[in-house]
């Protein structure tokens, strides 16, 4: 019994810490959705490109923090590029084309990465030790701690910037009402581009912090992105605190249901809950209910 409890706690902790990574990628979805009502279905490719850029930079002999910064700059450019080339066009044409265009651009990134960096998964060197720490019988690796701290730190930083800087407030104004914001002299286009760039930064940063766990390869973020998308929608595409909660819950629940039901079924309970939950509460757990106006 004692062992079982310890085992469950261990799994909840391990899963929960990885769930923070879901939350960070989900936060990228949230940022662009808030600004322009579109999300990047190729976000996983940005995560992957961020990781590859970081890897190449540290391969050039740059220290870890410089490689991560470089990856974030690349992420910002890529995020901006996706918005400029794909999303803006589709939204101008008033159709759901952006879903496909972001997938298509992602496909191109994927192919480019395959050819530039190769198809193999590569390890991502990190400055911290590989060993594990022990908290009351629950082991946690430095790497897991880094993922959690990085995700939390990055989200806090962006959220503070959104709330307390002029630019952040302007972006929020655009999310609330694009036309009204324009009338107040805010360039909504710039605000949207900026959101995409920041979303790209979050994705690239996510790539560099999970790269050491998942290894870096073209397909590294495929599974992660789908889970992040679930986290974003379930939390409600509007609450960053909710993202963390849902991300951690999803990570922990996967591990625990894997333990209890057999590892093949680990995702099943969360999926069933998700379908039922969305049917009951379409706006997400932490989303605000939308009132239909006519």
């Amino acid at each position, binding site marked *: 019994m004692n062992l079982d409890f310890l085992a469950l706690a261990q799994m909840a902790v391990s899963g929960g810490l990885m769930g923070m990574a879901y939350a960070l990628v989900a936060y990228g979805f949230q940022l662009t959705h808030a600004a322009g009502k579109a999300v990047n279905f190729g976000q996983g490719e940005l995560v992957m490109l961020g990781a590859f850029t970081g890897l190449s930079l540290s391969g050039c002999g740059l220290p870890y923090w410089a490689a991560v910064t470089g990856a974030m700059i690349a992420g910002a450019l890529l995020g901006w590029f996706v918005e400029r080339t794909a999303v803006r066009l589709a939204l101008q044409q008033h159709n759901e084309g952006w879903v496909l265009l972001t997938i298509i*651009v992602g496909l191109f990134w994927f192919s480019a990465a395959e050819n530039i960096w190769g198809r193999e998964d590569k390890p991502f060197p990190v400055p911290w030790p590989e060993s594990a720490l022990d908290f009351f019988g629950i082991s946690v690796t430095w790497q897991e701690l880094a993922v959690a701290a990085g995700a939390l730190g990055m989200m806090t930083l962006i959220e503070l910037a959104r709330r307390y800087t002029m630019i952040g407030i302007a972006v929020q104004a655009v999310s609330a009402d694009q036309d009204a914001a324009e009338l107040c002299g805010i360039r909504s286009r710039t605000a949207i581009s900026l959101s995409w760039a920041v979303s790209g930064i979050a994705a690239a940063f996510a790539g560099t912090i999970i790269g050491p766990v998942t290894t870096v390869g073209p397909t590294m973020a495929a599974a992660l992105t789908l889970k992040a998308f679930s986290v974003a929608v379930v939390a409600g595409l509007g609450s960053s605190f909710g993202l963390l909660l849902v991300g951690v819950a999803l990570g922990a629940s996967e591990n625990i249901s894997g333990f209890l039901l057999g590892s093949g079924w680990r995702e099943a309970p969360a999926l069933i809950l998700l*379908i039922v939950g969305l049917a009951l509460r379409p706006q997400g757990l932490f989303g605000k209910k939308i009132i239909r106006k*006519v």
Partner: protein
Amino acid sequence: MFAGISLGLRENTVERIVRTAIFIGLAALPALWQGQYALGLLTLMAVYGVLLIGLDTTVGYLGQINLAQAALFALGAYGTALAIGAGASLPLALAAGIAGALLPGAALALPALRLEGPQFALSTLSFATLSIIVLNECESVTNGALGLSISRPLLFSLPLDATSFYWLCLALLFVAWEASKTLFRSRFGLAIEALRDSPTATDALGIGALRHKVLAFAWGSALAGLAGGLHTMNFGYLQPAAFGYDLMVMLLLGVVFGGRRSQWGAFLGAAVIAMLPNLLSNRTLFSFLVSFGCVLTVVPPIRALLSHKVPLFRQAAPAIAMTLAVTLVFFIPNVEEWRKGIFALFLFAVVVGFPNGIAGAVTATLRQFIHFTPLPILPATGGISSSKKTEGIALRLSDLCKSFGGMRAVDNVTLDIGQGETLGLIGPNGSGKTTLVNLISGLYTPDSGSVEIAGKRPVCGSLMSAFSAGAARTFQNLQPFHGLTALESILVCQQGGGESEAMGWLLAVGLEGKARIRCSGMSYGDLRFLEIARALSTRPRLLMLDEPAAGMSKPDIARLIELIGSIKRAGVPILLIEHHQNVVAELCDRVAVMDGGRLIALGTPNQIRRDPKVIEAYLGADDTERDNMEARQC
């Protein structure tokens, strides 16, 4: 510029001739182009054709990103495989495949179709992941990841070789195509089209959103199941992993590439996703195609340059993408390795260059150059005189309340509308008039109080239920069905009756000359009249008109007054929200005045005009407000 050729045929007829010719050509192809490979590709194309026609029902017609189709395809495939394993004959095995996808598809549709956008996409994605988990884990039934091997069953005790199996697939594709086309051209299809534009209006007019969506999704699932069954028999080996996210993305891209809301689009998309990965094997052909595509895409930017304009990014983007693709094709030694990248560029050019896909672009071009004979217009029958006369009380509201947050939008409203009565509802902006109509029509659920329409108590907060009780309404902010013509907008709303009756309603509101014009191309005033015709065609027991004269020109207002007068004379009870004093004065038997959510006065137009509370509500102490109001009354 270009006069165009007139074929003297209807577009529909031409389409059918071309399609039949293509199918005959496809059926004859194995005789000309021999080899297993060709047959394999053609069979795959036919199977994907069925699958994509199914996917198009949600992605195209419902306008929702559906990520479950690959999983439904898998469920169909396993249904068929298991039936074959149990010794079923070919038709029975296909039926099992259809059932295998249809039942879970319908089960998913019920919760999922209440959702839209990302939420819908996510619930279908979750369903897809869940299905693959089940197929993987139930090893005793599906053999899990090891896969199921089956051999093709006999068709009525005849063995099917590759060619006859191809013919079978082609025939089924033809059937699926024709059935889908018929379905989406029927009233059902119009309803689907309508609810994509305004689910609120379709519910309020009794068309019913959820029912149609579920049916459309079920139809798409059934086709996925059929395609899955054919797929099983084609390859003879199934593995859950083959039906994952990659396949789903491929299918989605196929539909968009070909063109949404079109069976032609689905067919072209299927041809592309079946052929494209194999095209690269033939470098010469591929280089030619890419170059040809590149030439096509540089036309718009060059045209823009020739007329001394800087080409828009939208015009230039496909050309840039295709140029990049050409560069890759000609300068990269191993093109195979860049295959995905080249396809991505291809797809990018198509999605940006032709938002309606290849089929959409081709249709638009053909319509420019060929004049098809328009559909005939039938003579009008029926009209306002055929409206229902309502006996008894039309509407009874008791102590109706509704708050939004701390704001009481409707506060204890009690009100009756008598037999054949026209009641005017006036009040300053934000006084709760539209909220009241929304409560009556079931868009909002009241916090307390009750609504009774023509003696029935509809379920609170259900548009459909209020409609069944007899309510029909128009909207202050227009809710037209952009994709439908005026005639179709009526056809989809009216309960029974054909085109002649629909023409009757159009004639009644003076739109008979615009029957074949799409709502997206109609003027604001016309759309207001069309909304009234739409509501009338449901033969309501209570007609609610929410500011019908807003934004109308003076002559139109005169027409409107005449129209509402004739509706009134036909005995239809009317709740009329209006700001135009003259409209209210001329038409209403009684007038109710709202302010701050409360009913402050009720009486004949003359009594109301003199009521001090009304004057205060409207005029307050501020003179500018009075000026505004007078201006509005003009």
